[in-house]
């Protein structure tokens, strides 16, 4: 299942050369971390990041910038709206074209995994994030 979804992600990406990624995490330093981990990719204009520190903020962004973000990376464990609630809303309200949503959590447990998949998550990653694996999944050309 994951494979096929990643293929579709690959398709989206080939259509638009610049990949815009929305990262949702209540840890503010995630921004600095992503910006540095993807330093070269950002510099070379292959990808662009936007950041939200809550589910509410992420939804706001998606409303204001309709379908700009083709990929959403969201933490599950956040105060207020959880990543799972955000996932559910995105999948229900933003249908065409559906953004790819990858869930990230520190609790890499069965229950969260199953719930995320049930709600239509495209992938599931655990913290600490393996950025090499993530880049591989994003299929960003080096």
């Amino acid at each position, binding site marked *: 299942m994951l494979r096929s979804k990643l293929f579709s992600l690959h398709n989206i990406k080939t259509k638009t050369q610049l990949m815009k990624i929305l990262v949702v995490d209540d840890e503010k*330093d995630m921004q600095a*971390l992503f910006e540095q981990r993807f330093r070269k990719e950002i510099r070379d204009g292959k990808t662009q990041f936007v950041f939200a520190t809550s589910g509410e903020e992420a939804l706001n962004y998606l409303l204001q910038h309709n379908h700009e973000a083709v990929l959403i990376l969201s933490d599950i464990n956040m105060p207020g709206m959880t990543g799972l609630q955000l996932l559910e809303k995105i999948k229900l309200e933003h249908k065409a074209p559906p953004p790819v949503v990858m869930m990230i959590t*520190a*609790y890499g447990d069965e*229950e*969260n995994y199953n719930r995320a998949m049930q709600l239509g998550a495209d992938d599931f990653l655990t913290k600490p994030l393996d950025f090499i694996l993530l880049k591989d999944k994003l299929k960003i050309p080096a």
Partner: protein
Amino acid sequence: MNQHLQSILNIIQQDKSLTVEEKNAIAKSLKDADKELEITAFKLDRTEKVKRTTTILLEETIEELEQKRKAVEESRTALEKTLRDLKATQQQLIQSEKMASLGELTAGIAHEIQNPLNFVNNFAEINTELIDEMKEEGEKGNLDEVRAIANDLRDNNQKIAFHGKRAESIVKGMLQHSRSSTGKKELTDINALTDEFLRLSYHGLRAKDKSFNATMETNFDYNINKIEIIPQDVGRVLLNLFNNAFYSVNEKKKILNGLYEPKVFVSTEQLDDKVQILVRDNGNGIPQKIVDKIYNPFFTTKPTGEGTGLGLSLSYDIITKGHGGELKVETKEGEYASFKIILPA
């Protein structure tokens, strides 16, 4: 008649100088004397008997008293032992209550430590890469680029230090909580203590129950000076109040779900010569009929096995007896519960 009196009577009878009347009068007196003598002898005898009886009774009483004294002594020893046992049990209960609340927190603590450690590891790795890049740029003579990378390195180092300290303070907090209270008052930053335990409580419950969620709102008064408290003890009180608040909103959410937004509000405030910490939740509140009982030891509304019933009782003792402060509750059933800790500054 008494032998001596009889002798006197005989002598008198033979005396020729006395008239018959005189002899009769003396004889009567002697008979009266004899009667009185007899009565006196009888009384003496009776007194003697009473005395013997009394002595026996007295001895019996003394013996009885001695037995009673021994019984009292024995029960006193037994009571002292019971008291010692009770005190030991109380200590064990306090310890197990503490451990129970710590156990609940373990997962949350692990999560809380993992996050900063991830940052430490990630930024350390990035710095290694950046140093290589900086070398390359230096060799190429791109000084501007070298400077930019150096700035990034410094920023990242600050982040590493920040998250390292964050993890350290969590471990410290955890150790403080599990260690027996030193009972020593230390100058403590109330805001930092409150924030630390709020996070521990939130993440602890979160880790235990994946569906758990609540909005936390804080309003800290940053003008509060450090105050002298026993930080481990007050930390336990805070932990207890936060756990209760989150428990209450979570229970309410299970019933209402839908439109209900679970919320826990925490604030600190400097009052004249006091510091106040407020913990307010919009959960189920406390029914009026049990509000007087909440500080009683072993009183709990939680299902068997979920609460020791010692949390608020210990909290009350820590704040009032341990710190000369006040622990006040305000609540409306079904709407909210609000606890105020007031500590002398």
